[in-house]
């Protein structure tokens, strides 16, 4: 079971790299926000899987709950920012 969990974690990390490509090339800031949000959700799963690999899930699960609770504050806050400040990019020359 441990090799399987190890493989699952590696697969999640590779997925994370794929999502990160979108954050690199994302034309707008909001695309980046979206992909970072997905990376955050993947981190919850990764921490739970790491807890199973260490076979001390009772210790790791608190971190995962903390993430699950706090993951969406950043998204909410950024959304509020864009509702006040209705321009997407400060200038046209935003490069990545």
């Amino acid at each position, binding site marked *: 079971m441990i090799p399987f969990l190890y493989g699952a974690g590696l697969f999640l990390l590779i997925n994370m790299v794929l999502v990160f490509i979108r954050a690199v090339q994302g034309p707008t*800031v909001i695309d980046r926000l979206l992909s970072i949000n997905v990376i955050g959700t993947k981190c919850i799963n990764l921490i739970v899987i*790491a807890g199973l690999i260490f076979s001390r899930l009772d210790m790791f699960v608190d971190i995962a709950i*903390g993430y699950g609770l706090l993951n969406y*504050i950043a998204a909410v806050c950024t959304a509020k920012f864009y509702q006040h400040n209705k321009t997407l990019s400060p200038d046209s020359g935003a490069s990545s």
Partner: protein
Amino acid sequence: MILGFDIISLSLILLCAVLALFIRDLMGSVIVFGAYSFLMCVVWACNGAIDVAFTEATVGAGVGTVFLVSTIYSTTRIDTFKKNRLLKQLFMFAVVCVVGVLLLKTVTDLPQWGDAGSPANTHLSAYYIENSIDQTHVPNVVTSVLADYRGFDTMFETCVVFVAFIGIFSLLRIRKSKTKNAATTSPTTELTLPPHQEVDSLIIKTASHLMVPFMQLFALYVVAHGHYSPGGGFQGGVILGASLILLAVSYNFKKALSILSEKKIILLVSLGVLIYAGIGVICFFLGGNFLDYSVLHKILPATDTIMARSHAMLGVEIGVALTVMVSMYGIYLSLSSNGRFDKGL
């Protein structure tokens, strides 16, 4: 230590840092740094440093991004760094190279990962691991080290948070009497700020109604069970602060001030530090050293010297949690309203 996880997440962290440098819109950089802290938490967790990972998770996901976003909201969004001075850039590049080489040189002198012969493992850690349960009845060694063996350190760390809040608050705060005197300049500053109107979304509001009580109860659980599971005063305090910030973000600024007014914020921040230092002073008066909790069994009911240490640790953690919670909230309010305390993000 899980090697494959470490390698991929560390290289992703490097990519994040480089990407954040090259984005000109500061919002983009802030958001990319969100991913940086997520991945850093995974690295800590994969190396077994659970308490550090918990701190990183709460600070990175809960308050770090929010602070930076509210700072950008009250300042500017464009990276105004001038890129045309070649000589200056070359000089900076040289400085960075020298510092980097020095740091890499230091890395070779560090002990190997998990080296049993390194000084930290032969002297201190062994003592803590052997004696923690006997002397304090606390299974989580990190908590007993932080709150008991190195109580002075933690007290001054709490003071650092306190000073950070007081610094930000007193630097940014604009008194109303002063703005009246400077009435000629205030209209121009008003114009540079973005036009303000209250927006609130029903979905976000209802979701935060549902989440906030559970968040707070979870935070109190973290504070109360710091002896057995990762976490403790600091992490619980950050989650409490983040829940208050979530309420403030999903409503408007008036509601945020009605939860905790300015006066209460300053009072409670000081109260947290007072609880910590007060426990130390009580020990002092009972005939022990400052922060020597074992003498507290004279006034705590039904405890011996060992349980007194365990209970006093809980009291200390409550003080830390109070200071951290209220100072996080106060820093958010100061930053997002640009010190005016009338309207904000």
